Each structure stands twice: as structure tokens, then as C-alpha cells.
């Protein structure tokens, strides 16, 4: 042991403290960087040995994170994203059935019944008859428009699902590629903390699209687990693809190699893809069915009452609406029947041919459809049935909003826990910086002292 060893120790100390300062600087710089995990310098003493007297060694840096919290965060972020997607998408469908802004289906239905009522008061007034036809036209147009919009929306959701799957695949590639680079860096003895940060950030983006979980397997490889399938093993991604089933619903497949792979649709629970599929293949389908049932049964009921009425030509048995022969797709087909289209005089306001033209009894009965249960609509009258339809649309949206706020709260909590462990605290960094600065100053003092001793040795004793 000699004076030069003191110099060497001081040199190591200064370089270690400088390294510490560098890391502190990095932490401070990245305080607002999304996905940044704070670093800690790993300091250790050098082993005592020949030419080595317990100096300090900066062994590397460590990313401070908690596996359990990170997993929870990934999974909840996925669920939040699913709820967010559903909430957004259902908000758009709700607008189609929102009678509280502008004139909706309910008001055009009321207007139709009003015109029947006017017809009963003045059954032979051509203006009133024309009004009835025009209201029937407006009502059927609105029903059809609503059905068309829902149907268009469903096909838009297909495009959206396709985009999301494309996005998922490119993110899977990204994560796999980063894993490969991390492996290379690890093999070269590098730390790759920055690459890990990037991979973590990308995984969070990925879980927003499709809920994933990760673990590290026995060989140190990262495994990304998707719904019912392993999506990435090390640096090998497995792509997803979309298909349409016979019933029109979407299917998601996880391809393996060149093969078709397995269907994972039913395992989807978190992420945008799950939200889109849920809305497209459950919510929207149920909405369509309800609208179809409503249009079909109401149209038929009005038709059957109208069929008993006689037009000014003395004939009966005509329909007002054409809704087809089955409920499926009825709303999209609903239009004014060819029986009376353009012929207001053929509307059957009278209850018998003998009572023409001043009899409005049948028109009165048509207006009465508004107040009586419609067959096929569970004993509800038209406005109750429409109220139920609108209420159900509202309930779905409300439930989605509630789920969203609940999941958001949980995600925020985990995010807080995660930040608590992995986030940068400027207070801490301030203290750490001062520590390193003082330690550096002390080490340089040791250096100066050793230097002075050497000077004494060389210049005084040696003379």
C-alpha cells in the first residue's frame, strides 16, 4: 500500500460520484418522460487485494420497478382502454336515438298518430289525407335512416377493428424487435435500461389495444401473453388476423407460422379491440334487433287496422307500410307501401264502403293504435316500446360510462403506486446530487492531500 494507491482510490471515488451525478442528471431530465423508470447507481466496494485497497466501484445502474405493480398496471390499462372505447362508441350510437335534441323517432311517430286523429275529424279533406301520407313517409324514413346509420356504423367498426389489429401487429413487431436488441445488449454486457424503458412504454401502448401480461421465462426471455395465446416469445411475435363469421360477427385469430392459428375472440377482455368487438357484435346487434322488432310489429299493427278501412274508391285491404315478411332487417326496409304511395285518396279512413266519404271511424281506430298494446312488443304501446328501446340504448351507454369511471379509478390508483416506486422524485434527486457533490469534494480533498504528501516526499525529503 502506498500513496499512489490513495490517489487511485480518490480517482475511483471521483469517477463513481461523477457517475452518480450523471445518473441523477438523467433522472432529473426525465422527470416528465412517459414510461421512464428511475435509475439507481449500484455502488460497491472493490475487494481488498494486491494493489487494491477498498476503493469504490460503480457497478452499473438499476431500474427501480416492481414486477407485481407493473403487471397490474398493464392489465388495468387494457381494461380501462376497453371501457373507454366502448363508452366513446356507444356515445355515438346513443346520438342516433337521442330524442332530447332535435326531432327524433318518438316525435315523428307522435306526428303520425296526430295525423290519423286529424283524419278522423275531417276524413274527406284532401290536405289532411296528404298530411297523413307525408307523416307516414317521414316516420318510415326516420326508422330506415336510424337502421341504416346503425348498419353503417357496424361496418365502420369493422374498419376500426381492422386498423386496431394492424396497429397491434406493428406494436407486437416493435416489442419483439426491442426484446431482440435487449438480448444483444445483455450479451455484450450492456445494461440496456433505455431499451427496457422503450419496451415498457410500447407494452403499455400495446395493452391499450389488446390486454397483455408479461413474464420472464427461465432463459431470461420476455414472454408477452395475450388473451388465450402467447403473442411474443423472446423476439418472435405472432400476428393477429381478422375474419368474419357466417353470422357476420368478427373473429380474431392468432396466426402461428404459416398456419391459420387459433381463434381467440372469446378470450378478449381488455383493450380497444375487445371494446370495438363488444360494441360491434353485441351492443349494436342488440340495438338493431330491437329496432327491427319495433318497426316490424308497429308497422304490421298499423297495417292490420288500416286494412279494415275503406279508401275513397270503396276498396279495403291496403297496407300503409311495407315492412317485409320477417322482423329481421325490417327497420332498414320500412317504407310507405305501394298500396297507398302517392294516393292519399286510398287511405282507409272509413269503416265500410257504405259510409264513404264522411266516415272517419277507421282513422280513429288507427289513432288509437298509439294507446294500445302492440302485438309482438310484450304488451307495450308504441311510445312505451320506443321508450324501452331508447332506455336500453341509454342503459348501455350509462353502464359503459360507469365501468369506465370505475376502471379509470383503479388504473389511476395503480398508476400512482407505479409512480411511487418508479417515478422520479426531484427532492430525492436534489439530496442525491448534494451527496455526490460532497463526496466528490471529499474525494478530491483526499486526492489533494495525497498529492501534497507526495510533493513533501519528492521535494523536501528527496533534496
Amino acid at each position: 500500500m502506498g500513496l499512489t494507491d490513495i490517489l487511485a482510490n480518490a480517482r475511483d471515488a471521483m469517477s463513481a460520484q461523477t457517475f452518480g451525478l450523471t445518473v441523477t442528471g438523467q433522472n432529473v431530465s426525465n422527470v416528465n418522460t412517459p414510461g421512464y423508470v428511475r435509475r439507481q447507481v449500484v455502488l460497491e466496494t472493490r475487494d481488498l487485494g494486491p494493489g487494491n485497497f477498498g476503493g469504490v466501484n460503480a457497478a452499473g445502474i438499476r431500474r427501480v420497478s416492481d414486477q407485481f405493480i407493473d403487471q397490474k398496471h398493464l392489465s388495468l390499462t387494457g381494461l380501462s382502454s376497453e371501457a373507454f372505447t366502448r363508452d366513446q362508441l356507444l356515445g355515438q350510437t346513443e346520438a342516433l336515438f337521442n330524442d332530447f335534441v332535435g326531432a327524433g323517432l318518438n316525435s315523428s311517430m307522435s306526428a303520425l298518430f296526430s295525423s290519423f286523429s286529424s283524419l278522423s275529424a275531417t276524413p274527406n279533406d284532401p290536405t289532411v289525407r296528404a298530411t297523413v301520407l307525408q307523416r307516414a313517409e317521414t316516420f318510415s324514413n326516420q326508422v330506415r335512416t336510424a337502421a341504416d346509420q346503425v348498419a353503417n356504423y357496424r361496418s365502420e367498426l369493422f374498419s376500426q377493428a381492422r386498423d386496431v389489429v394492424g396497429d397491434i401487429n406493428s406494436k407486437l413487431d416493435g416489442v419483439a424487435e426491442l426484446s431482440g436488441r435487449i438480448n444483444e445488449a445483455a450479451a455484450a454486457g450492456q445494461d440496456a435500461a433505455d431499451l427496457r424503458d422503450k419496451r415498457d412504454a410500447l407494452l403499455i401502448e400495446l395493452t391499450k389495444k389488446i390486454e397483455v401480461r408479461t413474464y420472464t421465462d427461465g432463459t431470461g426471455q420476455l414472454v408477452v401473453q395475450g388473451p388465450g395465446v402467447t403473442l411474443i416469445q423472446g423476439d418472435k411475435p405472432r400476428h393477429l388476423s381478422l375474419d368474419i363469421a357466417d353470422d357476420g360477427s368478427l373473429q380474431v385469430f392468432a396466426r402461428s407460422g404459416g398456419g391459420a392459428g387459433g381463434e381467440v375472440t372469446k378470450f378478449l377482455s381488455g383493450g380497444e379491440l375487445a371494446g370495438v368487438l363488444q360494441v360491434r357484435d353485441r351492443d349494436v346487434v342488440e340495438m338493431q334487433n330491437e329496432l327491427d322488432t319495433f318497426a316490424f310489429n308497429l308497422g304490421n299493427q298499423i297495417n292490420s287496422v288500416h286494412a279494415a278501412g275503406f279508401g275513397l274508391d270503396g276498396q279495403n285491404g291496403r297496407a300503409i307500410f311495407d315492412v317485409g315478411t320477417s322482423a329481421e332487417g325490417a327497420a332498414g326496409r320500412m317504407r310507405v307501401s305501394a298500396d297507398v304511395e302517392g294516393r292519399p285518396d286510398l287511405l282507409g279512413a272509413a269503416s265500410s264502403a257504405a259510409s264513404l266519404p264522411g266516415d272517419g271511424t277507421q282513422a280513429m281506430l288507427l289513432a288509437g293504435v298509439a294507446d294500445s298494446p302492440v302485438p309482438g312488443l310484450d304488451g307495450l304501446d308504441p311510445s312505451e316500446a320506443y321508450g324501452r328501446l331508447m332506455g336500453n340504448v341509454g342503459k348501455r351507454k350509462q353502464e359503459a360510462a360507469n365501468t369506465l369511471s370505475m376502471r379509470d379509478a383503479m388504473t389511476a390508483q395503480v398508476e400512482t403506486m407505479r409512480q411511487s416506486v418508479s417515478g422520479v422524485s426531484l427532492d430525492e434527486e436534489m439530496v442525491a446530487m448534494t451527496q455526490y457533490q460532497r463526496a466528490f469534494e471529499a474525494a478530491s480533498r483526499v486526492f489533494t492531500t495525497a498529492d501534497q504528501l507526495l510533493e513533501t516526499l519528492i521535494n523536501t525529503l528527496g533534496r
Partner: protein
Amino acid sequence: MRITDNMRFGSVQRSLASLRSRHATLTNQLSSGRKILAPSDDPVAAAKLARINARAQRTADYQNTISAVRADIELSEGTLGQASQLMVRANEIAIAGANDALSPSDRSALAVEAQSLREQLLATANARGQRGYLLSGSQTSTPPFAADGTYQGNDIEHEVEISPGVRTRVSVTGAGAFTAAGGTDAFAALDALHTALLSNDASAISATLGAIESSREQIVRAQGQSGLIMNRLDTADEALSVTALELSKQDSALGDVDPFAAISELTQLSTTIEQAIAVARQTLTIGQDLF
């Protein structure tokens, strides 16, 4: 717990965001005056509101029906009133004509007036309203009486619904008022008077008095019927106004914002937001002197 900078910012951000969102909702509600702006705000109430709106519309429909048919029945009532006046005059002519002191020329002058009364009665009985000829039953495009006094209409009266489940006849037919179907044929009575006056036969003139009087009574009865129909319409209309008011109260109770509650919540919220901002400022300034 280790508190990091992002946690401080994050929690400030989250609480401000949720306060702002509640603030926006309240502002929307207050500016529109309505609590329910979309079905999801309250699905159950939204469904009820749809029902209430439909019922309110139906109530308005009944009222419109009443006002539409009321014009015709008023017209019928007036027409029958005129007709009964004509019969009163016919009665006077018959009494005057039956006077033995009257000269044949006076009688023939009266005969001209009787003829004119008959024409006036025909014109009156063939009056038109909004729905067409008032007194020809449902055959509203056919005049109820031909020139010879034959009834050409039918006895199908106009029936409408004037309140939920309440259907009522809102027309009277000429058959009951003017023809033998109601007891006496008014036109025949006037014809008989005319003929008797022309033939200068005092006892024959006197014999027409009974038929003229019973025709008049018959017409007055029909007039009374129209009066009753008008009463019924008025009563129904009043009841409907009450229903409409009740429905608008229900709608308002379910759908309107309580302005006092909403404004006081808004005020409270504004204070909370200001406090949150003050706290945020405090939180965010901690440590600004560190570096």
C-alpha cells in the same frame, strides 16, 4: 409512501379534471334547463319522458279533433235554429191562411211565401261545413235533400274519439230532423200547406197545422242534440286541458333541472375548483427552490 413529482401532478390533474367535468355537466343542464340531455343521463326517466311526451301529444290531438269537429256541429246547430224559425213562420202562414175572412188573392200571396219557405228550408238543410254537407250522415259529398225533399244521405253519424277511450257522435242527420224517419216530413208539410193555400181551402190549410208544428218540434229536438254534443265537447276539452297541465308537470318534475339546487351546487363547485387550484399551486411550488 414515496411521493414522486408525477404523482403530485397526476393527482392534481385528475381531481381538477373530474371537477371540471361535473362543472361542464351542470352548466349544460342549467343553460338548457333540462336534467336529461341524453338517454344515458337517466335511462329509466328517459323512457318515462318518451311516454309522457307521446301522451301529451295524444292529448293535444284530442283537443285538435274537438276544435275541428266543433265548427261543424256549431254550424249544424245554427242551421237547425234557422230551420225551426222557418217552420215558425210556416205556422204563422197556416194560421193566417186558415182565417175564413181571407180573400183568395191573399191566400195565393201566402202560397208564394210558403213556396219560398220551402226553398229556404231546402237550402238551409243542405248547408255545408268543413267535412262537407252537414246533415247527410257520412255521405258528405251528396246534398242531404233532393229538390223534391227526398233524403239522399244515410244515418251513419260522424264518430270521433275525444278523450282516451271516449268515442262520441258529433253530427246529426237530416233524416231525423226533416223526414218521416223522425216522425214528420217537413218538406211534405210545407208542400201540403202550399197546395192547400193555392186551392183556397181553409179547412185543408188548418189541417196542415199539426204536421208543421210537429216538424218544428222535431227540428228543435235535433237542434237540442247538437247543443248537447257541443256541451260534451266542451267538457271533454276542459278535462283534456287539465290532463295536459298534469302531463307537463310530470315532464317538468322528471326532466327539468331544479335551478336552485343546480345553481347552489355550481357555486359550491366553483369554490371547490378555486380551492383545488390554490392547493395545486401550493403543491406545485413545493421544491421550486430546491435547485
